[in-house]
């Protein structure tokens, strides 16, 4: 894992002091709320419905046990004993006081963390594959580039007041778990026939009101050119992105309005003009960073673990969890453990401070001290010996963390919705809970198989409903919440935007509607055909008929 050096420490210290000064000036009335707003937002502090909300950056979703314990400490000391892991691999605290914020930032700095640029019209926390460095299908660990981009984008003087927020995602694997095609910039690693690696640069994807799949502007950019090239993209966006309408201000609209070819030629012209003669420093910096991400000292183990196989035979519950919640590790005898933060009827992504400490302890003991936050709002232990899986599962069970629904109907992504968020038009959490309860029966979930249900409480789409296999969008119609259902979205390598099925449903009807859709799927699917594949084969018609025939 990356460790701060003296410069990184000093940088975060300066920034925290700066914020302490700004917050003092605001508390004394020397700054108006309007002037303070962009300053607090650049430090992750939002004013929500009931209180301030602090969003803490978890760069590329990677945490050490010590950091996770500090997050638990903050939850206990300054919040209500829990935190909410987000779809951007961050954590949010929903009950923060302005006068405590600088102290919280100090507590974060102690463990090499911060809340810089988790909000505002700037480059946000860089996200990546939550299985990075562990996945069997990976070409290379994308986190060194993630860290390079974190540093480069931190308080970038030219790009701190962009037309709108800016999100970058990076993946080093062909199976895209980082949703790179629906980010402002997505970077995907490729290896060519000679064995050299280069980055595909995808620009202009995004969700929100106008969902779009990004376009590729470079197929194979050499790694040392990344910073220079991204500066050119950012500059074109900063200069020409729309500022007249905040709903048309994301880079996807610029790419769309200029056309992909014209946009690309602007970027190439800017790139050619920049005096980036030598990239030696970037190359060296990337090498320096990469050394921190060296693979852990894994043991040479047989592929087959007798202890693991025996435990599965003895405990069907463990066997089911193991079937659903493990990912393929690149090393024999190891597995990736996906801890679901989606207990039946629970709030997606929430964890109590006690749960955080349990996960931290497990990571320290069994997973080289490392945890990951996934964009699906779960936690990952990346490097676990198969021999240890049963002990881990038992510990998770004791902490209500053993939901065996990873990747299934119960593994729902949801934004905080109207329960917390000032922008929301409808509640998300109760809808998620009602669906989760409906499918609480594990045999039923297993029968349905791989499924992504995503819920957003407004058209800003923080729950990424456009790319859910089943997407649910909460809206307001004359003071009543109602929910639109879309089918067929995906954020994976074959990304697609879901299609609206028809008229919306009242909140209490949504879970039944999802059940009707899934019953329809079960009737028409071919052997082993997953929901998304079935939908792509048959289209919306049978689902529409089933949902609206009796209405």
């Amino acid at each position, binding site marked *: 894992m990356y460790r701060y050096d003296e410069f990184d420490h000093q*940088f975060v210290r300066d920034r925290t002091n700066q914020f302490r000064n700004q917050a003092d000036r605001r508390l004394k009335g020397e700054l108006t709320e309007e002037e303070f707003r962009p300053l607090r937002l650049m430090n992750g502090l939002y004013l929500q419905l009931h209180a301030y909300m602090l969003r803490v950056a978890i760069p590329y979703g990677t945490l050490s046990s010590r950091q996770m314990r500090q997050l638990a400490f903050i939850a206990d000391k300054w919040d209500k004993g829990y935190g909410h892991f987000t779809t951007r691999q961050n954590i949010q605290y929903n009950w923060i006081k302005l006068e405590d914020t600088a102290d919280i930032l100090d507590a974060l700095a102690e463990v090499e963390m911060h809340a810089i640029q988790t909000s505002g019209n700037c480059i946000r926390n860089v996200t990546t594959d939550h299985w990075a460095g562990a996945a069997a299908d990976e070409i290379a660990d994308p986190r060194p580039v993630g860290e390079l981009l974190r*540093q480069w984008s*931190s308080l970038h*003087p*030219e790009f701190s*007041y962009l037309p709108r927020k800016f999100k970058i995602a990076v993946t080093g694997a062909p199976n895209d778990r980082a949703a790179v095609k629906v980010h402002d910039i997505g970077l995907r690693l490729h290896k060519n026939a000679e064995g050299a690696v280069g980055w595909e640069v995808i620009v202009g994807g995004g969700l929100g009101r106008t969902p779009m799949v990004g376009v590729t502007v470079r197929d194979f950019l050499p790694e040392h050119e990344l910073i220079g090239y991204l500066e050119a993209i950012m500059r074109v966006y*900063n200069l020409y992105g729309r500022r007249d309408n905040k709903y048309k201000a994301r880079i996807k609209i610029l790419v769309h309005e200029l056309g992909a070819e014209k946009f690309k030629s602007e970027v190439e012209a800017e790139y050619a003009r920049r*005096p980036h003669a030598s990239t030696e420093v970037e190359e060296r*910096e990337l090498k320096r960073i990469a050394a921190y991400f060296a693979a852990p000292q894994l043991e040479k183990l047989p592929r087959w673990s007798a202890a693991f196989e025996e435990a599965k035979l003895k405990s069907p519950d463990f066997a089911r969890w193991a079937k659903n919640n493990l990912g393929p590790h690149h090393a024999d005898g190891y597995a990736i453990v996906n801890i679901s933060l989606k207990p039946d009827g629970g709030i997606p992504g929430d964890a109590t401070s006690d749960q955080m400490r349990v996960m931290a302890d497990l990571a320290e003991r069994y997973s080289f001290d490392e945890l990951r936050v996934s964009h699906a709002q779960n936690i990952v232990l990346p490097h676990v010996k198969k021999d240890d899986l049963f002990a881990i599962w038992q510990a998770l069970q004791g902490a209500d963390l053993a939901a065996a629904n990873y990747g299934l109907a119960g593994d729902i992504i949801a934004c905080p919705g109207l329960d917390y968020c000032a922008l929301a038009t409808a509640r998300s959490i109760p809808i998620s809970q009602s669906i989760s309860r409906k499918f609480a029966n594990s045999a039923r979930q297993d029968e349905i198989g791989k499924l992504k249900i995503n819920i957003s409480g407004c058209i800003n789409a923080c729950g990424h409903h456009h790319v859910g296999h089943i997407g649910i969008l909460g809206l307001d119609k004359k003071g009543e919440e109602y929910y639109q259902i879309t089918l067929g979205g995906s954020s994976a390598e074959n990304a697609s935007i879901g299609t609206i099925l028809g008229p919306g449903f009242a909140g209490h009807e949504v879970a039944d509607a999802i059940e009707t859709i899934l019953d329809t799927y079960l009737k028409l699917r071919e052997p082993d055909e997953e929901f998304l594949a079935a939908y792509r084969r048959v289209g919306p018609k049978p689902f529409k008929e089933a949902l609206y025939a009796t209405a």
Partner: protein
Amino acid sequence: MPLLKNNTLISDTWIHAGVDGELPNAGDVIVPFVRLLKEWESLSQRDGKLGVELGNVDRAEALSMFLPRLSAVILPFPAFNDGRAYSIARQLREMGYRGELRATGNVLPDQLQLMLQVGFDTFDIGERFPLSTWQQASKQMSLAYQRGLFRRGSEAEIWTERHTDAEPWLEQPHAG
């Protein structure tokens, strides 16, 4: 209106001309970009220094042929969160422009250091904040990660410091 330059207050000695109307025979004059285009012949012949006020929707390249003759470029911030002028300023510095680069409009202390880093050296600051606030604001961060910025003596570029023996990316003399 006082200007901030090198952390001190100075007075504006430039004559600000409109889109049309008589120009004084002598003295340093700043004209809007449209006038520069229209009256370039006569303006370039004139005694005294010449400056231009660019819009933030104008392109930096459009100024390239005039730059050698220009001693001041003014870029506007219609709102503090309209960040276009940051890019234009940096472009002008990258094009080799070394004259005065002035920020005007909604210029606030909390953005001052960012403006300095992209190459602004003079600031139209109004009278709301005391000089000490501006002086403090100019050095809140002692470090920056990005390379190729304009730096004050106290500020360091982290990547450059970490790799001091590597070839520099782009020599940037101190602004102002």
